[in-house]
């Protein structure tokens, strides 16, 4: 198994980060695997981690009364999963379920928050990257909501 020092710089999400920052972040990382259909987290649970997908596919799920579990979006290798660990009350707003065997790097949220408080340069780098991801998801969600393929007479 390769160490995180080799894995992290390969991830688009961390591109351009200083070796020092990567080293600090790697201290909060662990390697995790989910089987097909396994829940990674469920709505309402404590959001204690975030994940970077290395392999596989994950469905973001919302429970809609009457309709059951609805997939809002699927996430693939290279994507980041979860930002609820960054903002109080640190609870998942959606569930995430592996659709196939999925390998991720998991990052401990409390560990990262502590390090970001102590080192604001690191915190700013992380926030910049998460903001970018959040903006991309927001734009994508808007496009989904516009229902652009529908007939609008």
């Amino acid at each position, binding site marked *: 198994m390769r160490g995180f020092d080799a894995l992290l710089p390969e991830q688009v999400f961390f591109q351009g980060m200083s070796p020092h920052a990567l080293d600090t972040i790697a201290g909060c990382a662990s390697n995790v695997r989910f089987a097909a259909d396994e829940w990674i987290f469920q709505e309402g649970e404590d959001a204690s981690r975030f994940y970077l997908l290395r392999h596989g596919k994950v469905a973001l799920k919302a429970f809609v009364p009457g309709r059951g579990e609805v997939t809002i979006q699927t996430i693939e290798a290279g994507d980041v999963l979860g930002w609820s660990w960054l903002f109080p009350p640190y609870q998942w707003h959606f569930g995430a379920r592996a659709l196939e065997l999925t390998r991720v790097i998991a990052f401990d949220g409390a560990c990262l928050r502590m390090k970001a408080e102590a080192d604001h340069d690191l915190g700013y780098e992380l926030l910049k990257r998460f903001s970018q991801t959040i903006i991309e998801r927001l734009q*994508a969600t808007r496009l989904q909501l516009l229902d652009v393929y529908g007939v609008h007479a």
Partner: protein
Amino acid sequence: MSAIRANPMAPDPWRIERIRRETPDTFTMELGPVVGETTRPFAAGQFNMLYVFGVGEVPISISGDPTRGTSLVHTVRAVGAVTRVMCALKRHDVLGVRGPFGSQWPLREAEGLDVVMVAGGLGLAPLRPAIYQILARRTQYGRVALLYGARTPADLLYRRELYRWGARADMDVQVTVDRGDNAWRGNVGVVPRFIATAQFDPLDTMALVCGPEIMMHFTLLELQKRGLTAEQIFLSLERNMKCALGFCGHCQFGPFFECKDGPVFRYDTIQRWFGKREV
């Protein structure tokens, strides 16, 4: 490409030979000539004017295989006055056909390059002839990717073909829907998201894009993020049409007439007007 006719506004009768329902409001029909001609050659990206006698005429892309020009294939979504009546037609009914009209996908220029095709909704219909043609000459192209987004799994066009193309080792097919259902195990999300991870070399790639304008807008941003220039991107646009011959001005788009200068445009030529209202 179309033959010179005595009266280019007069449609020729073509008979519906086969109809296939694609989705609840979309169908694909194969037309054969009623008189005279045996084939009507066309280029991938072109369209015909289809006339429902007594109702009206609408521009519809040709969605069939340009390498097998025995019938004319069109995929139509019933949205309004003409297309709804067209949707109710049956096998052996006769339609009027004028065409083919318009510009084509740059498949010759794309030889030797990777090709990424991005389709949204019904935008897959005008791209399908390009897919057929590329696959017929597969060795002439580098990597080939098709990224296709639809509203729901029930709205996916050409399912069997999508499955077949997706099973090929020499084609990367990514299908995504805006809204999944419980049986759907595929991708959920908008199609531009898949551009970041599609396999192509930005220096040597041609992108062919067709879909609703807002979807194309986000697709362009993602393609440019990957390093494609406006010269490497071709779009197919839709404007209202009447004559399809560059006479009436109905389809004006900036300094262009979409019926004869388009519907396929290289992005740098229309960049100034694309996405603006009322051009």
